[in-house]
Every structure is written in structure tokens, then in C-alpha cells.
């Protein structure tokens, strides 16, 4: 890990160039939307991976951070006319602080217990927002329309700028997580994942490193939240704070390969188009069909390829050599 072969670098460059060229070639609104959703969930999967994949903190509460990001920038914009880009940073910081606040009491929880605590936390956040008048409660908020520009983080005539912004966010997230995992932080998180005892014995403050992981993961997830608010221009608890979002993030990472940098991206490229297209093909009659397909995929993966699709690909890659 950490070093790339020329072939790998070439592959990443080709993929990145192809993604940059995509909107120039494919003109439809819907394919662009699907790609944006793919990037967004890939980004959240990468952020989740820092917790679940590297440190065995199986968070099922990422929707809370997503929602905090979305609501913070929106409230700041609506009530105080704060530029969404600043809102993005403030939302990220708020989410990171919330993550720290929830992370400290949970610092000794492992495995299932951490998962349960994270669900409880996210549900509390959702219920609060559902009843909190200041943030629009259950009716939600409609973002004020600003003139179309990158500075305003808002575009009306085309989705393409959103596409590039989200792609940039995804690349940034991958870089941040890659940098963390090939340095001390990654080594320490993997030690903590193995055993708290072992980590302590090696001088690692597992409370501190777990907090770092939660805060980085929360910040990145909140960035995706702000993006989503600016993209959809409407916000209510049902669209950003619900459990299925958290579950989707976990599935993306697990399917692709938890504990690998590119795993969640692979997971997202399989799951998100699947979910978006089944939704369109089957309409309202098909609600839930994507979830059924997920279920089957997840069962197959966990039974036959616990390391996810990425694990499968690297295994094939090794055999080919």
C-alpha cells in the first residue's frame, strides 16, 4: 500500500479523464444525475470506510452528519445570507464537533454496540429536526434561489457544474483518506481495529484516534450534505436524515470492499445506478425493488467474497500476473 505501479497510475488517470469527459459526451440530464449520485455516495462510502473499514466502528448514523451539513449551510444561507461555500465549511465543522461529542461517550463501544449507538444517535437527530420549528420541522425548507454561479454554489440551467463539483469532492475525499491510511493514522486505526489492548500496549490512545476518524468522516459526509442541499434545493428530515441513507452508505462500502481506498467507489458504481434506474423503470410500483436487489447482492458478497468486489478484482489482477 502507498506505492503505485505505473500501470495503476495509468489506470487511475484514464478513469479520471473518462469521468471528466463524460458530460461532454453524454448529454442527458438523467445520466448526469445518476453520475452525481454515484459520486456522492462514493464520497460518503469513502468517508464511512475510515470508520467502519479501518477502525471497526460500524457507523449506521452517517445520515446525521449528512443532514447536519445540509441543514447548516441552508439555515446560514436562508437566515443570515451566508455564502454556501462558507456554510459548507461551517457545516463540516459542526458535524465534526457533533461526531466528537457522540464519539467520546461511545469510545469504548465496539462492533455491534457502536452500530446500535450510531443508529440511536442518528434517529435522535432526525426526530429533533422533525420537530424543530427553526429548521422548518417536518415541512422542510426551500432554498432561496440565487443567481447561477460557482461562487453561489447554485446552477439552474444545467447539472453539469454540479457534476464537476461532486467529482472534485470525491477526488478530494479519496486523497484525504488515502493520505491518512498510508501514514500513522491508518496504521493506528488498523491496530485499534485488531484490539484495543494491543493498541494501548503500543502507546496508541485509541480514544484520540477513534475521535480523529469520526471527525474526518463526519466532515466529509457533511460536505456531501451541503452539496445535496444545493443540488436539490429543498430539504426536509425525510430526504437527508433517514436511516436508509445511512444503510446505503454502509452497503456501498461493504459491497465494494471495506478497508480499501477504492472499494466504496466500486460499490457505489454498482449500487447507485442500480437503485436510480430501477426506480425509474419500475416507477412507484417498484418502490423497494432496489432494496431487494441490494439484499441479494449483499448476501452473495458476504457469503462468497467478504472482501467485497475490490477484493475480487485484486485477486483476479494477481492471478493475471
Amino acid at each position: 500500500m502507498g506505492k503505485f505501479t505505473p500501470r495503476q497510475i495509468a489506470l487511475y488517470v484514464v478513469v479520471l479523464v473518462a469521468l471528466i469527459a463524460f458530460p461532454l459526451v453524454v448529454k442527458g440530464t438523467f445520466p448526469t444525475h445518476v453520475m452525481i449520485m454515484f459520486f456522492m455516495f462514493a464520497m460518503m462510502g469513502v468517508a464511512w470506510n475510515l470508520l467502519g473499514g479501518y477502525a471497526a466502528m460500524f457507523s449506521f448514523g452517517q445520515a446525521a452528519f449528512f443532514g447536519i451539513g445540509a441543514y447548516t449551510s441552508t439555515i446560514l444561507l436562508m437566515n443570515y445570507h451566508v455564502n454556501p461555500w462558507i456554510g459548507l465549511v461551517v457545516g463540516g465543522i459542526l458535524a465534526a464537533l457533533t461526531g466528537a461529542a457522540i464519539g467520546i461517550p461511545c469510545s469504548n463501544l465496539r462492533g455491534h454496540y457502536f452500530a446500535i449507538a450510531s443508529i440511536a444517535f442518528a434517529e435522535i437527530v432526525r426526530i429533533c429536526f422533525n420537530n424543530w420549528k427553526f429548521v422548518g420541522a417536518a415541512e422542510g425548507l426551500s432554498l432561496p434561489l440565487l443567481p447561477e454561479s460557482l461562487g453561489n454554489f447554485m446552477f439552474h440551467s444545467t447539472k453539469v457544474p454540479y457534476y464537476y463539483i461532486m467529482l472534485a469532492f470525491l477526488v478530494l475525499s479519496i486523497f484525504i483518506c488515502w493520505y491518512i491510511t498510508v501514514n500513522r493514522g491508518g496504521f493506528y486505526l488498523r491496530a485499534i481495529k485488531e484490539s484495543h489492548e494491543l493498541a494501548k500496549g503500543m502507546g496508541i490512545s485509541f480514544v484520540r484516534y477513534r475521535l480523529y476518524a469520526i471527525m474526518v468522516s463526519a466532515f466529509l459526509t457533511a460536505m456531501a450534505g451541503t452539496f445535496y442541499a444545493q443540488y436539490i434545493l429543498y430539504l426536509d428530515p425525510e430526504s437527508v436524515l433517514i436511516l436508509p441513507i445511512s444503510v446505503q452508505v454502509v452497503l456501498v462500502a461493504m459491497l465494494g470492499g471495506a478497508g480499501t481506498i477504492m472499494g466504496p467507489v466500486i460499490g457505489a458504481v454498482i449500487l447507485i445506478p442500480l437503485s436510480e434506474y430501477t426506480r425509474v423503470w419500475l416507477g412507484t410500483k417498484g418502490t423497494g425493488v432496489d432494496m431487494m436487489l441490494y439484499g441479494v447482492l449483499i448476501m452473495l458478497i458476504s457469503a462468497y467474497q467478504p472482501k467485497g468486489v475490490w477484493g475480487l478484482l485484486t485477486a483476479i489482477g494477481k492471478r493475471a500476473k
Partner: protein
Amino acid sequence: MSDAACLEVQGITKRFGGLIANEDVSFTVNQGEILSIIGPNGAGKSTLFNCITGFYRPNAGRIFFRGKDITQYSAHKICKLGVARTFQVVQVISDMTVLENVMTGTYLRTYNRRDVREKAEEILRFTGLYEKRDTLGPDLTIADKKRLEVSMALGTQPTLLMLDEAMAGLTPVELREMMALIRKIRENGVTLIIVEHVMEAVMELSDRVVVINSGRKIVEGVPAEIVRNPEVIQAYLGDRYHA
């Protein structure tokens, strides 16, 4: 306290509910020596070990490391001060190679990735695991795993290294190798505390031996004295053999 004291344990008592695991245990470890802690199963050796390394908090007593009171310190801080340990049940990071495992230890005092790697490689050459640096932790033999655990501990650059049964379950050849390694570590100026059942190793390696029975220290001395001590014989063999 003398200048030579590396570790000073004063009147440590540790209770688990009604069970007294350690009672008023005191001893001193001098700089550069190898001190063994022995005693029958359940005597409280591991509890004592865990109290010193900050994994348990003693109910009474104080522990000084190089003159500093570390009784209330958490485990990771004690390690940062220079006390490293291994575990009775071998613990290595299973999704890491041998080299990465040692790097995890080395990161404690080094940040730059290249330096960390170089130091870890140096340690692996020292402990004789260099050839196996790319093997995954769980794929090693038990003897190599123990060696790896020692390497990981050395990665944190300790002044005091505490080994919890590092020689249990080894073949005679492996035992010799481990003993040679322990001597080499001491020659590098590291003080060692060894909790051990393998008497052959204890008698040959130790400068001094502390014997624990039923949570109390019953005797302390050089190996030759210990083997002749009637209380030790009684503790190990029972009353019937007591002269």
C-alpha cells in the same frame, strides 16, 4: 530511591471484588537488569504485570518509573514514557505484514513514513525476522509470532521491556533463540521484566527473581538462592514435599 532504579513498585494491592489478586507487593528493578517474576498458576503475576503497564489500576500502592509516579497513568502514556509490553496470548495485527506490524510500533516516536520504515527494518534485522517482513502476521509460526510481538514492542523504543510468557510453548531450539534475543536486547541497554513459567529460561537469564504466591511476594533473590528456598519449593510442590 537509588539512581539505578528503573522501576520501583511499592505496596501494590489489586482486588477484583472479593478476590485479592495482589497484596502489598513491593520490589525494585535496577537499570539494565533482567528481573523475572515467577509463581504458580493464579499467583497474580499477570495482574501485577497489568498494574505496572497501566492496564489495571491498583487499589493501593504506588509505581515509579525512573523516579516518576506512573500509578495513575493510562496504558498508552506509560508506553510513551518508555515501557513496552507483550501479551500472554500473542497479539499481532492480522491484516498487516510483519514489517507493517513493526512500523505501527515505530510510529510512536517517528512520524516520517520513510524513517519509520527504516527503523522497523532495522529492528527486524535485529530480531531475525527480516526475511519474513512481507509475510502476513497470522501466517507466522507461534515462535515467529512471539518474535514479532517483541519486535513490535521494540519499535516503540522502550527503556523497560516487559515480556509476558514470551517463551511458553516453544521448542528447545526456539527457546534458545528467544533467550539469545533477550540477552541481545539487554546488551542494547534495555531493562527487562519477564513473567515466565519456563524455569530453564528464568534460571539462566535472570539477574534476580521475584516469587509471587497467592498474590503476595514470598521471596526475592538471585536464581541460585531461589531454587533452594523452602518457601518457593512449598509454593510450587505443596506442603507434602516441605522438609
